[in-house]
């Protein structure tokens, strides 16, 4: 009872202090500056939340701190920007990526048969090795002479030509189909070889029932169809996408970026993180290394330059809208709220953050997956012993977390300069958010992100007004973290263990 009272008192104290600070800021800054700073704060907070939500879910369930999260945010921005500006690159590499995925996913069909093979222990060791070597050779042949840099450049070409004329008039660097088709076929073969090797033929200790074949064939079959489709639309699709309404194109960019993040996250978890769960420090080093690899890859493809993604038409028309209705009709770039001019794109980011928080809440409280995650945070072994495949839940949660990060990236792309380091600041703020909110708590991530965003915005405001160094603004979030940790070491919504 006593402890409960103390908790209630503490909460009341925090609320009172927070209200006091808010009222004080309002009186000091005046309504206009206050409202506009709050809006910048909420915008930042939304982005912080999108980064922190994934970090905290992944940490809560798997105890993995993903130091590549910021790079994944950045990658999401690049993928979305590419798709929005000129999807030639995305459509150009999609057949290869899909073909590889198809090959690898056939593992679910192959495995039950390969496992049943009668092989000597020597062969059991030898066959996978041979398969991997062959796969490497085949894949090298498949991509030999594939001009990925020319593909990657198409978006830049499109950008420079938009003002001059028609971006669609650009010649496509795509190979003709009669030369190209060999590549996806070879890559799929490479994927199949990898599937062959990693299903450990002859190793009968594995559990691979043949009964579920109908289900097992579903995913590779869908991927196969997608691969074939992607081979044929490779040249025509970019043009059709560019002819679409810009808002729809932006929506598609978001979907592409999220889908990419999901698949990328799943692949990273399966290949790189899964073998290391027993060695947490290795995972940290691995994700750190991964963040550099991603950054270098992006610089290789798109040069270490800074790009600005055009805002979609809904947020592009110069001029201020007087009401939300007017904005939605005309697509103004700013809107009048309480006498303050607020960029409409900020409202979009804020809405995105709130919607994603609502969706994450629904997922965690109302769905079976959410139940499994909450149970798994406490005791993954017991969840597994109840008949739930915890490994695949880990993969799913990692994929969802990365998808949230890439969503944040594409959301931020029309608003922040797109460049290889754009995720770093967000990763740092995301980590601080997670610490403030409590490791593993998505509610904490939301509240923490909003507090940090607003603190940061007011820090910027004061730095400008009192002509202090902008470092003050950056320090403000750290100061808040220190205060929170001193009063509540588990964070605002953290559970004591």
């Amino acid at each position: 009872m006593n402890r409960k009272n103390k908790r209630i008192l503490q909460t009341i104290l925090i609320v009172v202090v927070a209200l006091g600070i808010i009222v004080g800021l309002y009186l000091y800054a005046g309504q206009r500056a206050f409202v506009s700073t709050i809006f910048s704060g909420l915008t930042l907070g939304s982005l912080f939340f999108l980064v922190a939500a994934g970090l905290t879910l992944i940490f809560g369930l798997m105890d993995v701190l993903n130091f590549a999260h910021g790079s994944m945010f950045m990658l999401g921005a690049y993928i979305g920007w590419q798709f929005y500006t000129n999807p030639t690159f995305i459509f150009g590499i999609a057949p290869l990526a899909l073909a590889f995925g198809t090959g690898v996913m056939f593992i679910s069909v192959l495995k039950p048969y390969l496992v049943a093979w009668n092989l000597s222990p020597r062969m059991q060791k030898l066959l996978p090795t041979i398969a991997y070597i062959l796969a490497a050779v085949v894949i090298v042949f498949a991509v030999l002479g594939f001009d990925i840099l020319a593909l990657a450049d198409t978006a830049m070409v499109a950008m420079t030509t938009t003002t001059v004329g028609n971006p669609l008039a650009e010649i496509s660097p795509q190979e003709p189909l009669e030369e190209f088709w060999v590549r996806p076929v070879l890559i799929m073969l490479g994927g199949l070889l990898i599937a062959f090797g990693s299903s450990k033929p002859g190793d009968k200790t594995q559990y691979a029932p043949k009964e579920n074949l109908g289900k097992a064939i579903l995913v590779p079959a869908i991927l196969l169809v997608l691969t074939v489709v992607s081979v044929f639309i490779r040249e025509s699709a970019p043009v059709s996408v560019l002819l679409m309404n810009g808002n729809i194109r932006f929506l598609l960019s978001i979907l592409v970026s999220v889908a990419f993040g999901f698949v990328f996250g799943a692949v990273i978890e399966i290949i790189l993180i899964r073998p290391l769960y027993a060695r947490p420090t290795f995972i940290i080093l691995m994700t750190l290394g991964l963040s550099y690899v991603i950054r270098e890859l992006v610089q290789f493809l798109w040069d270490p330059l800074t790009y600005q993604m055009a805002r979609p038409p809904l947020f592009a028309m110069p001029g201020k809208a007087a009401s939300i209705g007017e904005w939605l009709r005309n697509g103004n770039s700013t809107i009048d709220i309480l006498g303050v001019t607020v960029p409409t794109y900020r409202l979009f980011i804020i809405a995105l953050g709130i919607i994603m928080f609502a969706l994450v809440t629904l997922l965690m409280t109302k769905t079976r997956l959410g139940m499994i995650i909450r149970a798994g945070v406490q005791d993954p072994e017991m969840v597994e012993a109840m008949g739930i495949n915890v490994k695949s839940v880990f993969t799913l949660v990692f994929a969802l977390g990365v998808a949230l990060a890439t969503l944040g990236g594409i959301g931020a792309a029309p608003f922040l300069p797109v460049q290889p380091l754009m995720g770093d600041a967000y990763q740092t703020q995301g980590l601080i958010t997670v610490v403030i909110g409590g490791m593993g708590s998505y509610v904490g991530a939301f509240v923490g992100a909003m507090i940090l965003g607003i603190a940061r915005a007011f820090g910027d405001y004061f730095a400008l007004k009192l002509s202090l160094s902008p470092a003050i603004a950056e320090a403000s979030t750290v100061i808040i973290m220190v205060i929170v940790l001193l009063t509540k070491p588990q964070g605002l919504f953290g559970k004591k263990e």
Partner: protein
Amino acid sequence: MSDVRHDDLLLVDHIHTYIGQFHILEGVSVRVPKGSITVLLGRNGAGKTTTLKSIIGLTPPREGKIIFDGMEIQGKRPYNIANLGIGYVPEHRAIFRQLSVLENLKLAERKKGDFERSSDFIFKLFPDLKRLYKLPGNHLSGGQQQMLAVARALVPENKLLLIDEPSEGLAPILIQQMMEAIETLSRTTTVLLVEQNFIMASQLAKQFTIIDDGKSVSSGLMKDLVLQPEVIHRYLGASIKTRIELEMEHESKE
């Protein structure tokens, strides 16, 4: 090598289990005939829990065989083993504290509708749970948590239940209720029970296996064991004390 007899639901055959580099089980064999309760007896730290964990696959054995329902299950992933129809009730009331009672039960479903099918039976065994079903797990008393832990294993259709020390830390009246519940559920499901309360074990179980220092040292019918005080004394020693005595000892120490 022991052979599987036709009425064996589970046969644990000379398993060796390691935790890290520690050789915990050094040859444990347990035979669990269909349709009755078999109890694992042994001192603290003998390896009873590890035996159950080896069966469900949480600490897979390195050597030996585990045959369930005619199928070798050693080395399979725990979720695969559970889905063959084995329910596991861990020691120390390992329920999910952040989940409500209802969610704890719902999570145990393997097929849609498992909970609807079994809820009447569960609430008849543990009427308390019905009243509490909205509460989060960490608001339950120790006894209620233990009941929830058992109830959870009754949600899906299981052929075998592994129950680890269900009477641990319960008040005498609750021990009685738990015994009745296990007796009732054993009419429909085979049970492998770990129980240090010898009185409870001897009333419930038909077969026993004694584990001592990581090895199974004796097994047979419970009705024969109660006639062999020297075996009981040699391998079980203090653990034949009733739970009440242990509890009193515990309290006097504090």
